[in-house]
């Protein structure tokens, strides 16, 4: 998932630490033999899980891990061949869909029964009654706000996007900041995710139930776009170049008062490497609601692992055990502030309050329909002109619908 990226120094520090500990202690994971080959996205929490899994290596067990931001493009071809290039694909609720669509991952029920004693029931991702993935961490975007700025402007912590706009106006009127808001509006994955978040807050569905027919060209879709545009009034004119990482830099520079940002970056915004003056006044809350909706206008995400279908049962068992060890309660106990873990024994730290408040607020999960990825792609290319102010909302929605329908027809969904 693109949202998970951390600052380089923090990552290097953690990586160095892990290599040291991994070098010293070789754990006994109870694996007799086999080959474990992990493919995952590249951010701190996953690197930690990977290196813990690598501890399971022994004379008869080999463990290799490839953490790369290109994992989504690699996983399909790599798991299609027989035997698969990787035995483990670490996925999120969007990237598991293409593996499910192509039938490239195996049901894990037997493995869970045999080796999954330490797993909690809510870690099991089941599809049609079969466990297909084991989740180990949750993530979502949520509100970051500057308590000092809000106080000086005399506004309460906003709970809806309408209040966010009012607060931004108050901050500007008080002469505190010219551009108090920021969002990840960079055309591409980030911009599409902003639309998905906001639209989820309306409570509407993206598709006509039970079919691949798109259903966003309605009043809520228009309201979503209008709100995204209205917020840009209060953003730095360069807002179209901002992705999640840039948001954190802007935050750290004290340029932003309110933003909706990834929970996995909350630790970096308040951690040791953050600007101490800003970090001291940084607070987190659930993502705002939108358009009279009752749930936070944001998607919930999980990250977990899946096991490839085209590998031997021996490798599958070895891979499962290594990954359970990688995301074990010990890992979580040693790295409590790196992620919002779903694993047994996790005590949420101060950086996790936003994600937990958002989940408790009843936010919906990122949709797992087989054609959601096609919609995300269509949104990522077709909304750019609207956000740049070169197109109106009706035209943008019509373009999204047309681009999506063309792609869905070609992929055999319509």
């Amino acid at each position, binding site marked *: 998932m693109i949202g998970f990226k951390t600052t380089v120094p923090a990552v290097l520090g953690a990586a160095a630490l892990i290599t040291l500990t991994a070098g010293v202690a070789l754990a006994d994971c109870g694996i007799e033999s086999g080959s474990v080959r992990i493919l995952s996205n590249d951010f701190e929490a996953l690197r930690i899980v990977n290196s813990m899994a690598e501890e399971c290596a022994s004379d008869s067990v080999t463990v290799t891990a490839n953490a790369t931001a290109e994992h989504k493009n690699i996983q399909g071809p790599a798991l299609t061949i027989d035997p698969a290039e990787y035995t483990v694909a670490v996925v999120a609720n969007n990237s598991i869909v293409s593996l499910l669509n192509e039938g490239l991952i195996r049901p894990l029920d037997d493995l869970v029964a045999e080796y999954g004693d330490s797993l909690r029931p809510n870690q099991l991702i089941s599809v049609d009654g079969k466990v297909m993935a084991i989740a180990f961490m949750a993530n979502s975007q949520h509100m970051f706000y500057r308590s000092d700025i809000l106080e000086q402007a005399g506004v309460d912590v906003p709970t809806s996007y309408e209040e966010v706009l009012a607060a931004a106006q108050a901050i500007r009127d008080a002469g505190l900041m010219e551009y108090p808001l920021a969002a990840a509006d960079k*055309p591409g994955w980030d911009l599409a995710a902003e639309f998905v978040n906001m639209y989820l807050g309306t409570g509407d569905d993206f598709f006509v139930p039970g079919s691949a027919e798109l259903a966003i060209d309605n009043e809520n879709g228009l309201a979503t776009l209008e709100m995204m545009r209205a917020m840009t009034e209060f953003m730095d004119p360069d807002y179209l170049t901002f992705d999640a990482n840039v948001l954190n830099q802007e935050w750290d520079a004290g340029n932003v008062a309110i933003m909706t940002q990834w929970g996995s970056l909350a630790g970096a915004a308040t951690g040791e490497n953050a600007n101490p003056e800003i970090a001291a006044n940084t607070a987190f809350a659930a993502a705002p609601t939108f358009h009279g909706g009752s749930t936070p206008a944001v998607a919930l995400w999980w990250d977990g692992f899946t096991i490839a279908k085209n590998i031997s049962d021996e490798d599958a068992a070895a891979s499962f055990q290594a990954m359970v060890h990688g995301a074990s309660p010990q890992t979580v106990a040693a790295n409590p502030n790196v992620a919002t873990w779903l694993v047994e024994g996790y005590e949420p730290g101060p950086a996790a309050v936003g994600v937990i408040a958002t989940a408790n607020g009843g936010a919906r999960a990122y949709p797992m329909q*087989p054609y959601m990825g096609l919609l995300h792609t269509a949104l990522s290319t077709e909304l750019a002109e609207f956000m*740049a102010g070169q197109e109106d909302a009706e035209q943008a929605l019509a373009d999204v619908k*047309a681009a999506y329908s063309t792609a869905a027809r070609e992929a055999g969904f319509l």
Partner: protein
Amino acid sequence: MPHKTFFWFILPSVVAMILFIALPIASVVIQSVYVEHERVLVEVENCGPFGCSTEVRVDTEATEQLRSEQPLGRFNGLGTYLNRAHLAVEEVGTIVSTSASIGEALTRIYNLPFYKAFLFTLIYCFVVTPLGIMLGFTIALAVNTIPRLLKGPVIFFSLLPMIITPLIGSLILYWMFSSNGILGATLQTLFNDPTLTLRQSPALTWITLLVYGVWTAAPFSFVVFYAGLQTVPGDTLESAMIDGASRWERVRFVIIPHLAPLATFVGLVQLMDNFRVFEPIVGFSSEASATSLSWLVFNDLVGQDSQAFGSAAATSVITILGVVILLTPVLIRTWRDFNAKGA
């Protein structure tokens, strides 16, 4: 050369061309007339950390069976070529019949992804190719006259744009043009307009891309013309000087005619190169303001979930046809020259 010797002489090239050019093109053409099978969808109960819900899933076994029966997919004829992502025949028809003015119709057609990419590709081709050739020629003339001692370093610097990987070159220029970069910040100060950024201004994006294109295309023309300049007959130049021709007249009436066949060759190569413009689009992240045909193919193949092979293949075939049409005048000219020499 006897026919038999000639045959054996060119056989390796022919085999290589069939394997690496003809067969891939045939495969692309075939793929472009097929689309994926209809997915068999089923509703199932999904559970996760955030609760359970009933959602649609692809029935992989049923879909797999369809695929094994017909591995190429569903035959779609020219459907992919005519859909909205390509020639958009239906949409263009609607636009033409419902638009009040030609200007409005053109704006709406430009909103279609294929035409947007096509227009930029063509303009890039026809602006960058002549300007790049002219710049290369000018550099060649300049280098030809400077003292021997300076030639080496100057040639090296002139070739630099060709040595730098296009993606890196465009990224460097992009950073310089971003609003904190030296060029971007200067522009904003000059025009006193804080919204003048690469993201906000499509015009600025286009100009930057074209400038980058000329910068990176010039070295190739320079190298070829510089080599050509060494073959200009000294006698002719000297007699032109005796006749009182100025430097400009010597260039215009002796050097340019002498290098004309080379210019045809350079133009041919540059046209092909510029028609497949791709790296600067990615480097400048200019997708919102400018895309190219090659970028469309790339975009189809790195989708979120699945790769749209049919769509990418159709765009590729259209690109190949475009190159053929573009090159036809140049090829006809070469053919005439060849015949004239033979006669």
